[in-house]
């Protein structure tokens, strides 16, 4: 195992964030606050409690999930796309590193960043609502698995994309709708039966539901289903990455 390489990539990727530190902290604090003002206060005052939880508190897991997904994908996809785009990837390709080491470095850094973002959101939320986390360990496991698997997905996207448009289109056209329709800001119980059934095909629903269960013990699907689902997703993504590196897909001609 080339630990120095894993560390070098990880530090390099984290340094990229450090350069935009203010932006990476201030931006989520502001948007989270806005969500609470708009959804929590304005709309929430008209919505009674959802399954015994105040609306403001109800949306916290969804909000965290929204940010985890989008930022994991964008961090990781940009992390590998950019060196490919400017050509500096030659160094990684000629270095004595295995796929796993590359993945640990890039995906580890991307996941770390989005987990840090999740923590910032959680802290911001605590200023607006009274936080209650019933199962902190399960919550952490969920956050870890989600950040890891979606960073892997982002990594795949970054290798696949050969222009900036492709890079931004997937998160925008796929992830954002899935998150919004995945019960992040409502309970699917509020939907008509047909839409409830359709929602069950949305993988994000399982993530949000699982995370929400770790907070408030309310869930649309069994928490174990959620956990195994995200685990299976993570392994599939890892399989795809290994395959891409093995064939040299879009990296080694």
């Amino acid at each position, binding site marked *: 195992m*080339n630990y*120095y*390489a894993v*560390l*070098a*990539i990880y*530090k*390099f990727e984290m*340094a*990229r964030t450090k*350069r935009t530190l203010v932006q990476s902290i201030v931006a989520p604090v502001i948007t989270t606050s806005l969500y609470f003002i708009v959804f929590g206060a304005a709309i929430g005052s008209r919505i009674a409690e959802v399954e015994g939880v105040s609306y403001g508190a109800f949306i916290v897991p969804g909000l965290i999930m929204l940010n985890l997904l989008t930022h994991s994908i964008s961090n990781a996809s940009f992390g590998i796309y950019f*060196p490919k785009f*400017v*050509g*500096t990837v*030659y*160094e*990684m*390709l*000629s*270095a*004595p*590193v*295995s796929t796993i080491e590359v993945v640990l470095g890039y995906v580890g850094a991307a996941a770390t960043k989005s987990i840090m973002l999740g923590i910032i959101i959680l802290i911001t939320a605590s200023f607006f609502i009274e936080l209650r986390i019933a199962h902190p360990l399960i919550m952490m496991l969920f956050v870890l698995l989600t950040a890891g698997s979606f960073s892997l997905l982002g990594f795949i996207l970054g290798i696949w994309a050969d222009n900036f448009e492709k890079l931004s289109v997937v998160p925008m056209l796929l992830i954002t709708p899935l998150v919004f329709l995945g019960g992040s800001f409502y309970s699917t119980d509020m939907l008509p039966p047909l839409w409830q059934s359709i929602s069950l095909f949305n993988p994000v629903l399982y993530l949000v539901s699982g995370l929400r269960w770790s907070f408030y013990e309310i869930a649309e699907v069994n928490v174990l289903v959620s956990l195994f689902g995200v685990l299976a997703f993570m392994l599939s993504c890892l399989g795809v990455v290994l395959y891409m590196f093995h064939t*040299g897909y879009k990296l*080694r*001609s």
Partner: protein
Amino acid sequence: MDSSSDSILTVSGLNKTYPGGLQALKDVNLEIAKGEIIALLGPNGAGKTTLISAICGIVKPTSGTVTVAGHDIQRDFRKTRSIIGLVPQELTTDSFESVLNTLAFSRGLFGRAPDPQHLEKVLKDLSLWDKKDNMIMTLSGGMKRRVLIAKALAHEPTVLFLDEPTAGVDVSLRKDMWNIVRELKEQGVTIILTTHYIEEAEEIADRVGVINNGEIILVEEKQHLMSKLGKKQLTLELCDALATIPEALQQYELNLAADGLQLTYTFNTQGERTGITALLDDLKLAGIEFRDLNTTQSSLEDIFVTLVQQSS
């Protein structure tokens, strides 16, 4: 190579066909000795970068094998890649990093423990030490080239590839670069550089390999190549124009200029007899008078042009 034990790099039967169908390398065989400086000469598109990329792991060979220090580049990629350093042809750098950080990154990536002293030495050798905290994007093109060289040396490689290192580089960097190359050679580092500046190969290399259309045309000791293919020409400026070359002079295979006022005689410097005295005697007999004469020796450039023309 007489003994395979001093060989550091062996390329055998290497082929590369790009996905588009272009065959960039055709059955390339090459043996490089430990500690030598070899220059790969070839026109644009000859396959120099492809050859280097295949050895370094950036391009997947279609067939053939490469071993570095006895290790296969695919099976033992960790071993081979950690002893290789690569300075790429393109000026590709991480714009927002500082010079020192980018070197530390390279060293780590190649699996070496941090060593600030070594990085300091590399930066000083390349006159980059006072720029160590600068962001790379604020540096000039020449400085960026130095950074790329420094990055390649950060993990103390024993085989160094320099892909067209002096393209677009100023005189002072060229001088620094050759000094570093010589110093590295003294330390036992093997250096493989590509160039299409022949003077460069002439100046620095121990051996020269000529590559064209994906094929290695020849690999020779530089001196050997010069003497083997180095031709001299004797040019005679005639007093009176000549319509044809007289029968008596046919054996010299002379060349008559279009205006009939210039005769050129090509002879081999290695030959026992150059034949010049005999030619001059025969000219006298034939009644041809000349005003002036001069000789020129072909440079590596001429040799190269001849070779490439022969092969294509």
